[in-house]
Each structure stands twice: as structure tokens, then as C-alpha cells.
């Protein structure tokens, strides 16, 4: 009964994603087997690229499977999934960020904004969710101030508020997108919109990784990302735009041309999100946010391209559709 409301285009796109994963997994599997049997060039045997690819793909299967199941199960499951993502992102951010022992109460408040944000979204109060960042600013600021020491006040409160802004407010826009009412004429409803932005941003990341590894030479921002090349960014951007143009008409109310333009914008914002999170990591002196997803790093390492693009896409939908 619940399954009957899943739109056919949603099922079609999900099937396509798993076909893509199957293709990638078998390609890597054949490559590994061929190298084992025939031997390969010495650089590939000694390089970590194949084990890394296999680890990445294994993580992709788990992410795609859990995301698809939640999308199909419906609204509550999708929102629970996204709330869990927010929790994991906040937890790994706070785990690698230095805090004063007196900031402990502030950290509990940061976690408490998760049920606040997602509770309001689940009950359909999209505009109430807009007060979460202000509430967080006020409560966290006051709590850090009540510590009674002005030394490092801005540092402590800003560190916590950055975490809340990224993990709960910015990524929470994915839940706002998923909760868009189907009555607005969206063909595949909120789940279609959510699948659209997640797929466009993630396929952009994958293309960026492949283009950067295979034909990238010149580093785009050497001070921040030692692995990101200009070719990678261009490849990611083009792929995101083309994927959006192909899927937009099925999953969203946007026309093909409009989808192409929005896809390009999502691609650019995805790059900027990744760059910003990289700057945060470099400042903390770490390479990855965590080790939750073997091959990828932490949850935020995978979701960094959604940090800016999700709020943009949500507000675009509100204004234009």
C-alpha cells in the first residue's frame, strides 16, 4: 500500500543507479582479475588505486542501498535517514575539534538542535525550521558566555555554531526538499527532488575524482586541496549539468534547459562546498573528517558537495516553482 505511491520515474532512476554501480564494480573486478592473471605494469601493482577503488565502491553500495530503501519506504524513513546523517556529520566534526572542558553544555545543545530541526520539518513547519540557526546562535552564545570567561568566547562559540550550521542547518535543507508537498505538481514528489539533488551532486563528485585522476595536471587550489585539479572541476561540472538535464524532467518540475542550468549551478556550489570543508580540515590539521566510509573518509567528506547546493536548490524551488 505504501509502496504503491512510489513514482515509476523514481524506481526507474534508482534502477539506473544500481546498474551504474554494477557496471563500475564489474569493471574494477575484471581489471583486478586481469592484473592477477596476466600481470600488469609495475606502477599499478604498487599503487593503492585499485584497493581504494574497491573500498570506495563497497561503500557506495551500502550508501546507495540504504538511501534507496529509505526513499521507497517514504517520508518518515527519509527524514530519519537524513537526521542520522546530520548526527554523524556533527559527531565527527565535534570529535576532531578542540574544545574547552567548559563548553560541554554547548555541545549538548548542538546535538539537541537535530530533533528540533527535523521534528519541525516532519510536522510540515518549514518556516519554523528557519528559526533553528537563530535559536542555536542565541542559546549557544548564551551558554558559552555563562561560562563567565571572555577569553576565547568567539572561538568556542564559533566552533560550535559552524558545526550546527553545516551539519544541521545546511544539510537539513535536504529534509526540507524531501518534505516539499506533492500537491505542488511535482511529478515524483519530494523523494524525486531529493534523489535529483543527491544524485547530481554525487555523480559530479565521482566525475571530478575520475577526471582529476586521469587527465588532471594543474592543481586548482594547491594550498587547500592537494588532489583537486582544474580538469577535475571542469569534468565534474559538465557531468553534473548533463546528469541534471537528463533527470530533471523525470524527477522535478523543471524543463530540460532549466535542469541543465540548475545542474551547472549545483556543480559549482558542490565544488565550493568541498573546498570550504577542505579548508576546515586543513585548519584542524586532518586529512579526512573520519573513517565511517572506507575509501571516502567520514560522512562529511562524502556530503561536502551538498552543504551549499542543498540550500540553493531548496530556495530555488520555493521561488520558481
Amino acid at each position: 500500500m505504501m509502496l504503491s505511491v512510489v513514482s515509476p520515474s523514481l524506481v526507474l532512476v534508482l534502477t539506473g543507479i544500481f546498474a551504474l554501480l554494477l557496471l563500475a564494480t564489474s569493471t574494477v573486478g575484471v581489471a583486478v582479475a586481469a592484473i592477477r592473471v596476466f600481470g600488469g605494469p609495475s606502477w599499478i601493482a604498487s599503487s593503492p588505486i585499485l584497493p581504494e577503488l574497491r573500498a570506495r565502491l563497497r561503500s557506495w553500495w551500502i550508501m546507495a542501498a540504504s538511501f534507496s530503501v529509505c526513499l521507497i519506504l517514504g517520508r518518515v524513513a527519509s527524514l530519519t535517514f537524513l537526521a542520522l546523517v546530520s548526527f554523524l556529520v556533527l559527531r565527527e566534526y565535534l570529535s576532531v575539534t578542540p574544545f574547552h572542558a567548559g563548553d560541554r553544555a554547548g555541545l549538548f545543545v548542538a546535538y539537541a538542535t537535530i530533533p528540533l530541526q527535523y521534528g519541525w520539518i516532519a510536522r510540515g513547519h518549514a518556516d519554523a525550521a528557519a528559526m533553528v540557526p537563530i535559536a542555536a546562535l542565541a542559546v549557544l552564545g548564551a551558554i558559552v558566555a555563562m561560562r563567565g570567561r571572555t577569553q576565547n568566547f568567539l572561538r568556542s562559540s564559533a566552533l560550535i555554531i559552524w558545526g550546527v550550521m553545516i551539519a544541521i542547518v545546511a544539510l537539513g535543507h535536504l529534509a526540507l526538499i524531501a518534505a516539499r508537498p506533492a500537491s505542488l505538481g511535482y511529478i515524483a514528489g519530494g523523494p524525486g527532488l531529493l534523489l535529483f539533488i543527491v544524485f547530481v551532486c554525487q555523480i559530479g563528485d565521482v566525475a571530478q575524482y575520475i577526471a582529476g585522476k586521469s587527465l588532471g595536471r594543474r592543481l586548482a587550489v594547491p594550498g587547500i586541496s592537494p588532489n583537486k585539479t582544474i580538469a577535475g572541476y571542469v569534468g565534474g561540472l559538465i557531468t553534473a549539468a548533463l546528469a541534471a538535464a537528463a533527470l530533471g524532467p523525470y524527477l522535478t518540475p523543471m524543463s530540460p534547459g532549466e535542469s541543465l542550468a540548475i545542474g551547472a549551478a549545483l556543480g559549482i556550489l558542490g565544488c565550493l562546498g568541498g573546498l570550504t570543508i577542505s579548508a576546515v580540515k586543513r585548519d584542524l590539521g586532518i586529512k579526512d573528517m573520519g573513517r565511517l566510509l572506507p575509501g571516502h573518509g567520514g560522512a562529511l567528506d562524502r556530503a561536502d558537495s551538498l552543504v551549499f547546493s542543498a540550500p540553493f536548490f531548496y530556495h530555488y524551488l520555493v521561488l520558481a516553482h
Partner: protein
Amino acid sequence: MGSRLQGWCHRLVIRPLICGLCGLRVTHGDRLPRSGPAILVANHNSHFDTLALFALFSSEKAASLGSVVARDYFRAGSLIGWIARRLMGAVPVTRSWQPSEGDPLAGCSRALDSGKILVLYPEGTRGTPGRMSELKAGVAYLARRHPSVPVIPVTLSGMDRVLPKGAVVPLPLTVAAHVGRPRRWDGGDCREFMADLGAALVDALETSGESPALNCRP
């Protein structure tokens, strides 16, 4: 009966708290003993340390895990004493021991003889986070008495942020456990044995820094 309770506590409380709510990052987990007897030696900053060390093992092995606790803090009849004895396999030892009281390590020896994996904090109490206090020599005496039992240093970091001294509610944060190379009693002297263990714990404390915040303090 007690061991069944310990298994369920491990499955329903310890693993979900440490691996679900907090997240446990293990390096060199292959160095952990597959079965007892063994002695795990760790730095001590939080009541959660013992939970984290227990979470390194599967629930099937929960019944063979034990922790060496201070008799004066984990008093028989108190709630925390009951939890330690019934749910955590605690072996109480007397911190301020008098010669008239007999062998202070008899309980630990019995536990090792019955194949237990014993958790022991040679600092003797919860110390200052990020810094090792002076180590007590009890581990060395125990190792000398049981020369075939491996002693494994495990360095924990981040636990003092999850549940510092005096706190009641744990804060969900990822914690790290670095498992050091197992060692055995080599016939040398107790002071050298402890110095070597202490160095292993401190080295890992300083180099576990993939994430500096896990052990550095502002």
C-alpha cells in the same frame, strides 16, 4: 548466570553505547588476544575507559572479560560496586594494602588462571587527560607471576571528552583505541618492565594524532 548477564550487558549496553552512540576507532586491532588469559593495560581518564576496552571484543567473549577495580571506590553493596561486579566482571583489589591482609593480587591471579582477559589501569586512578601519571608496579608483579600471559598496552584517547570525571551523561564523540605490541615477562626487573609499558602508552598518546583534537587540549 553472572556470565550470561555480562554477555547481555555487553550486547545491549556496552557495544551500542561505544560503537553506536560514540564511534570507536581502533588501530592495530589484530594485536588483541583471541582468547584469555591476557592482561590489557591502558591509560585511565574516564569511567567509559573500561566500556571502550570491553567493546574491542565481540559479545561472545564478554563473559571472559574482567576489570581490576579499587575495592575502596567500587564498594560491595554500592550501586557502582554492583554494576562493576555483576556486569563488568570486576576483580576488586585493595589500593592501600597492609602486609597483614595476605596476597593483594590473589584475585587477579585466580582470574588469569581461569582464562580471563583482565583490564588494568596502572595509573591506579583516573589521571589528567593527555598525560600519564606515574605507574604502579602491580602489573609487573602479576606478569612475573604469570610469565606466559601476554600484556597488551592499549592507549585510549577522547574518552575524557565523552565522560570526564564527575560527569553523568556521556557526550557522543568518536574515541580512539591504539593497541600496542603485546609483551611478556622477560625475567628483567619490575621497574624496567613498567618503564617499557609506560613508554608504549605515552608514544601512542603522542602519535595517535590523525585527529589532533582526540588528544590535544586548547
